[in-house]
């Protein structure tokens, strides 16, 4: 006997009925690596962190990120970076500046020529990291020092993320129209549902009182 469900899609799966034996623990990376996603809310705004996605490669990560983070909210651009490629400073307390806490460190790996790095700042715990700017450096450590020189005095900074620009997949300017939401999708906005007229009409006709 296979399982019969109220959902015809489930019935069509032909699932065996009854107790199933426990599954083996899922192997490591069954759910892939993680990527971190940044979006641009409107033209000219700084890119802001929205959250992670799991994906097998950069291209799929971009598709998942687009689906997850731009489906329901205004978006004019998206960046993604593999979590592994992002260097994170310690976290300071709210109101403090983490640049005052980190000491200059020797580079672990250095390039011959300076390369661009993207710098993200967290201004308050619980908020999201925002793009502060781009610096040129030969290592992560140097990039952090550069970031401190260029952006380090702009108010409290709780935490800094540093990532090489070449590791950030950025949506292209010429693909801008992919972010346009067609107006026929209003059915998924709260504003499309106006129930008060129906309720008022019903109450008038039936003289019910809301207690």
């Amino acid at each position, binding site marked *: 006997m296979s399982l019969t469900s109220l959902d015809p*899609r489930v019935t069509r799966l032909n*699932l065996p009925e009854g107790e199933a034996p426990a599954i083996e623990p899922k192997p490591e990376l069954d*759910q892939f690596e*993680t990527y971190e996603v940044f979006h641009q809310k409107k033209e000219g705004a700084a890119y802001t962190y929205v959250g992670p996605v799991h994906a097998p490669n950069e291209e799929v990560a971009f598709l998942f990120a687009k689906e997850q983070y731009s489906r329901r909210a205004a978006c004019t651009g998206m960046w993604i970076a593999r979590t592994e490629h992002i260097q994170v400073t310690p976290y300071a307390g709210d109101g403090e500046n983490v640049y005052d806490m980190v000491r200059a460190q020797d580079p672990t790996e250095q390039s011959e020529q300076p390369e661009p790095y993207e710098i993200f700042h967290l201004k308050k715990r*619980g908020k*999201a990291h925002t793009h502060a700017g781009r610096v040129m450096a030969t290592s992560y450590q140097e990039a952090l020092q550069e970031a401190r020189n260029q952006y380090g005095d702009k108010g409290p900074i709780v935490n800094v993320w540093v990532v090489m620009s070449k590791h950030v997949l950025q949506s292209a300017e010429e693909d801008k129209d992919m972010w346009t939401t067609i107006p026929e999708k209003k059915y998924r906005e*709260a*504003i499309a549902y106006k*129930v008060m007229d129906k309720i008022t009409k019903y109450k008038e006709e039936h003289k019910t009182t809301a*207690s």
Partner: protein
Amino acid sequence: MYGGGNVFEATKFDDLQTEDPVKLAEFEARIARGEKIEPNDWMPQLYRKQLIRMIEQHAHSEIIGALPEGTWITRAPGFRRKMAQMAKVQDEVGHAQLLYSAAETLGKTREQMLTDLINGKSKYSNVFNYPAFTWADSNIISWLIDAGAIVNQMANAKGSYGPYSRALERICAEEAFHLKYGHDAVVHMATGTPKQREMIQAALNRWWPPIMTFFGPSDKMSTHTETLMRWKVKMASNDECRQQFLDMYVPKIWELGLTVPDPNLKKNMETGQWEYTEPDWDEFKRVINGDGPCNAERLAVRRTAEERGAWVRRALLNPKAKYVRPLA
């Protein structure tokens, strides 16, 4: 949507004596100042353990909660409703992704969480072990279960853990559509033909008992609960959430001329508290432990999706891939 009713039982990490007193004091001072905790901060074992448990259960509730509503996608009355129902179900699955990632920042991998879900080791909201017999059942879920979820999620969004708060803010924004959509669907039925009214009343009658258990049994006020409240892990008691829900939604049910199937339900004007027939907590326990009408089906569907997709994931896996926890 969220299955509330977290039962915070004692764990073996309960003993704060084993924690570094200086670090614990700093941690508590940070929360007392209203600052959020971020993944790399020092935190007591109990804090980490309870948050993983709570966020994981929340994630499972989203992914399993998509199933009873998904039941009616193929037979939604009209194209617009079908599109809206699909959008809602997609949102719920998206919420699961956000929440799994938030839990991951605390050190439990998504693989471990999915394994524990399928093997019944982790729970999800008990209400989703009940079937959606008709389209009207699906409307009641969209409206009232989501309403309950929002009460819970709004409270939890003010909690102390940064990644969970960030995920919940995003989720709450999307839930605004769910609530309106569900209310609209119920109003449409309740103000429609006698047959439609009969259907929505029958669905409300079926769903009211599970809804009353949604926030979980009354909390035992132990020192354990007090600690979790001080740490802003638990933001409101189960009874407080239930009272808030009744305050907000019973009048909206009554104004449609629908009957709540509990003759004892009334607001005590002196105490300001709702009185109601105590939910059947024995049934709640029995169902949450596996013996409900849909437990087996829900897990079988999840398990099959995981098993039948496994070869695709294996084929796509980059052999050089390395797992790193999400950052925030």
